[in-house]
């Protein structure tokens, strides 16, 4: 499973060659999650599918530009799709600054075999997000809801650089906690 990143990069390489089966495989594996990301940004399932289509067309059309130095293949795909959703949200003049309460964790706890090894990364993430306090809402607004720095600055009456600092500190704390 360690080569998850390579798998996505391989599919991107296939897309760059014009192999549509690679795009199909990406949709098989990531489509539902990418749609979930788009819905969180656009708050509308139909608009989310439109944005996802736009994003996947961009993935298909610009896959040749992907380089491993630009991050993992999976991360690059999410960035491209997320960008499409954010742009659609702006086009729709959606008030992205209205954040919603965080959804309950959809990964249900299923079994107990008394092993710390089996504790999931998602489980750790929960605890680490809790430790962020108020910073959690900022981080989730920016990362999950697609709220722009400028909107948050206006919403909180703070300079843009302060928002940048909040986001950076939030991510750094999260990283330290997850390590």
């Amino acid at each position, binding site marked *: 499973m360690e080569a998850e990143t390579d798998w996505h990069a391989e599919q991107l390489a296939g897309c760059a060659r014009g192999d549509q089966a690679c795009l199909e495989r990406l949709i098989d594996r990531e489509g539902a999650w990418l749609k979930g990301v788009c819905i969180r940004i656009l708050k509308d399932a139909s608009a989310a599918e439109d944005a996802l289509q736009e994003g996947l067309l961009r993935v298909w059309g610009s896959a040749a530009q992907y380089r491993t130095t630009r991050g993992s293949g999976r991360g690059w795909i999410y960035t491209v799709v997320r960008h499409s959703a954010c742009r659609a949200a702006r086009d729709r003049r959606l008030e992205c600054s209205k954040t919603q309460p965080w959804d309950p964790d959809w990964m249900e706890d299923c*079994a107990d075999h008394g092993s710390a090894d089996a504790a999931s990364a998602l489980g750790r993430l929960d605890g680490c997000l809790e430790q962020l306090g108020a910073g959690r809402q900022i981080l989730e607004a920016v990362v999950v809801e697609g709220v722009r720095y400028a909107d948050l600055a206006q919403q909180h009456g703070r300079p843009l650089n302060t928002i940048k600092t909040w986001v950076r500190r939030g991510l750094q704390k999260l990283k330290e906690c997850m390590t």
Partner: protein
Amino acid sequence: MNDQSRVQADDDLLIGYLLQELDAEGQSVVLRRLEAEPELAGRLRSYEALLLSLADRVEPVALSAEFRLALEERLHSAQPIERPGQQPARKSGRGPGFWSLIQPIWPWAGPSAGFALGLSVAVLLLPGPDAVSLRAQQQAQLLSEARLLAALTPLPSGGLAPAGPSMSSPVVARWVVEQLSDGSLLIRPVRPLGASAGRVLQVWTKAPDAERPTSLGLARADGSLRVLPEQARQAGAVEGQLFELTEEPAGGSPTGLPTGPVLAIGRVM
């Protein structure tokens, strides 16, 4: 600017790049530096991993039955993409139409049995738009009556398969086994998971009184496997029966028994 300030400015730049907050010039600067500075690229990946872990918490939502057809139309109506020095775009070669193939649906049905996900996945043949709604109805009917049989988790240290679920010290399932209303079994991941490059996921089951595990087949690229009713009946799904997924060479285990690492394992409750 001292070292600490420089690092913070770089981090702001990387985060801004990942969140698409930079203008075109800022993006260009980051891309140039990433090519030239491996250390910066490493930091980018660590931030990216964090952002992806947050994205993974988002609830997956089934693509509509029309999604792929609409995307196909847009792909075909788009101008051919110029890729200097590369072969022109080609069909996948998997049938008369690109999307005329087996594809997954991921309807979200909410929690069930007090602890397990109601997420279901199945396969659907899409021979054409006329059949889509009927197939989707049949699919929805099957999935609405899906019954959770087992939650498969990573193998614990010590190598013993979990005896069953408990809420006192929870772990997170990687795959679940469900029985659909037509008697088929559905083994599917609860988040995007697949095999390493050049490897495949193979699904196994072992009844409590069986001497060895039996293969149920190779999982699809999305990590799911539908076991049709007749095979499912033969395989059984009795209390205590083991299900597991292993990573195997392309084509499946060469021995007929699991050879690769166990990615997830669990018993029928």
